[in-house]
């Protein structure tokens, strides 16, 4: 629409994380009735030309999480355009370049992995919406042996917690068993990728390796959608994936069988993308 001035957003800034880049900006004042903000992105570039091919997403929020970037460090250029209630468009914001962080799943050597680090939880048992069958299928939780079990039957797509009435309002334990021919000389990292989690009470798990209590892993709030859908790569998905990678203290692993135990004794469920241990 010619002759109409629509405010351009200001204050566009970004923060790079594992697998995602978080964008924020200053919303236009309320006297502009916003239909949406159109966010444009171009990979490996210093600027982006707004157009249908570079449209990343439309949002009403002054905030976008550009997720699903995988384990490699990915660079993007961004601009934001305001579209008002009449369909009129602002001039693009100033460009901004940002990068995501590299993941140990890319740089490390896998020691034990369950699932694919791909933004999907569809390979797991009961996925994408079979949580009501969890109590009957996994009455004692998950006990998964790498090399013998398969994710489609051995690892539940959801890990419930004591806040989940559908899972008996109790703690739930997931065990990951794996053999090592030799203990890695360097650091070993744990990588946990989630496709989603409960929005307000994602809670935490108590982590134990070979009988030694390690730490408590706290999860980010998700979108409470991952109990019903399992693919964060679907356009328009409201799933909110999150990533947790941290080194294990030295000396915990041993030659032969190792057992990593996660007891979800706080909060509600998390929805798995993948879990793995990596030597770096």
């Amino acid at each position, binding site marked *: *629409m*010619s*002759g*109409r*001035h629509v405010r351009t957003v200001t204050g566009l800034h970004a923060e790079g994380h594992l697998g995602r880049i978080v964008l924020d900006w200053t*919303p236009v004042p*309320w*006297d502009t*009735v*916003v*239909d*949406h903000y159109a966010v444009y992105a171009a990979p490996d570039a210093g600027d982006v030309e707004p157009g249908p091919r570079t449209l990343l997403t*439309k*949002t*009403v*929020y*002054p*905030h976008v999480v550009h997720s699903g970037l995988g384990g490699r460090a990915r660079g993007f250029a961004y601009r934001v355009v305001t579209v*008002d*209630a*009449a*369909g*009129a468009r602002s001039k693009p914001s100033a460009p901004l370049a940002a990068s995501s962080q590299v993941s140990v799943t890319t740089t490390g050597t896998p020691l034990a992995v369950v699932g694919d680090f791909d933004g999907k939880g569809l390979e797991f048992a009961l996925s994408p919406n079979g949580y009501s069958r969890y109590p009957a299928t996994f009455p004692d939780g998950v006990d998964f042996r790498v090399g013998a079990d398969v994710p489609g039957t051995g690892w539940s797509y959801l890990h419930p917690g004591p806040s989940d009435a559908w899972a008996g309002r109790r703690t739930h334990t997931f065990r990951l068993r794996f053999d090592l021919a030799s203990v890695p000389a360097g650091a070993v990292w744990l990588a946990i990728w989630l496709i989603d989690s409960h*929005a*307000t009470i994602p809670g935490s798990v108590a982590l134990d390796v070979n009988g030694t209590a390690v730490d408590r892993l706290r999860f980010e*709030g*998700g*979108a*409470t*959608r991952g109990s019903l859908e399992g693919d964060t790569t679907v*356009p*328009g*998905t*409201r799933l*909110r994936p999150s990533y947790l990678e941290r080194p294990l203290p030295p000396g915990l692993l041993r030659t032969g069988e190792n057992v990593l135990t996660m007891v979800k004794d706080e909060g509600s469920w998390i929805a798995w993308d993948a879990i793995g241990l990596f030597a770096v």
Partner: protein
Amino acid sequence: MAPIRHPADRFLSPRFDWVDGVTDPRLNRRTFLQLSGVSSAALALGVAAPIGALASAEADGAQLPDGVFGLGVASGDPGTGSVVLWTRLAPEPLAPDGHGGMPPRPVPVRYEVATDESFRQVVRRGAAVASPELAHSVHPQVDGLDPGREYFYRFHAGRQVSPTGRTKTLPAGPDATFRFATASCQAWYHGHFTAYRHLVQEELDAVVFLGDYIYEYGITAANLWRAGAAVTPEHGVEIQTLEQFRLRYSLFKTDPHLQAAHAAAPWFVTWDDHEVQNNYGADGSRYGVLPEHFVHLRAVGYRAFYENLPVSLSTLPEGPDSTVYRRSGDGELVRFHVLDTRQYRDPLPVDTADQNREDRSILGAEQETWLYDGLAGSTAAWNVIANGVTVAAITTNRTDQWDGYPANRRRLLDAMRTTSNPVVLTGDIHKHVAAELKADFTDPASATVGVELICTSIASDGDGAPTDAYTPDWVRHPYVRLYDGRRGYVHVTLTRDAMTSEFKIVPWVEADADAPLATVARFVTPAGAPGLERLA
């Protein structure tokens, strides 16, 4: 009298610079500045325009695409002498950009109101501007009408004439018989709007819609239970932008029985949660959206609500805020108090002590004061409270309902004790429930201070069944007199002496729209004796 606005006339403040929104050279600043007698705000907001001064724009309007009245017509918020008319121009209702296939320029719309269906006795004519800022909707308010009278109305845009709508003003005297129906929860994708097909056969004076006019969820193979229906991919994601909300309203309004129901009688409409997001409260999302972000979703949800429904200009949002609670009717028979149980509610309780806090409110302090003052000051025989979620005490863990706000419920029940014949109308739960409201729900022997008529859904949850897993929670209470989980509506007849409520159901909605209508229960509530006497 027009619906009582609160706060009064806020829309007349000069916050809308409508001239900035006008880009078409044939309907430009100079043209509008030559007009007189109508405020610029009213003009810009699709409420009024000086008839006869828009000739050049109307000449251009003659070039409009065919079928601009594809979303039908409606009327709402009737008073004893007024009613709001509504239409939204949309020759392509399902255009993905949410603009309904309209060109991005203002279009003048004329309307006529007559006492006869053939428009020989036209009693009011007027015009309004349909602007792209409001998705080409108009909301002219027609004043100076006679009380308790049937009227017919239609719109003109260019050379096109809308379908004719029927409306009616509220009665003034005490001796009328006033008939209305209540409806809620119309998940288009879960089934056909069969209930509306039957509802339009009733000779109604009003329809009261109690929330969940749309649903925000993505429509996919998993939830598309309406046999014969198909949607394009843009409907498959959860809606978030204004264009998506507009498109969702358009999709639901493509149902011919819904359009017919709007055209058959004036509606009072309030919202529940799904006009924005499931189970939200105030600025709180259940899905982890930060409050400072969530208000932006609320802003577009509220905006689309206004654009697509026959509601008073007083409900037009300012940013993320909208005053939807309002009152109508200064006659001696009935007064409507329309509530908003979403926008001002306190957050979910963190524990039992928090839940029982005396200062917890589902209405917010300002709306509570407004309601209690309005109930106390009402001179009507019947005071009808249109409300989103169940008031009656059911279980303490139903914290999204008034069960989550027991102190507020006590204050409401106290106010009802001194109110003339209070009747609460509710939706939300997808079940028919009739309940007596007790002065003290912990003492079933305490006085009954009013009744609550909860209507089932129009389509949400598909066919349903007479009983289900939730039934025991409800029927264990002696004050719950009916529970039925099938789809339908409630029909209410008010006279000075009594209220008769009839709970109507259709046995299926998923397969087709052909299901017959049945009445599962009828109750009489004598004036002055709150309670539900079941009829055979």
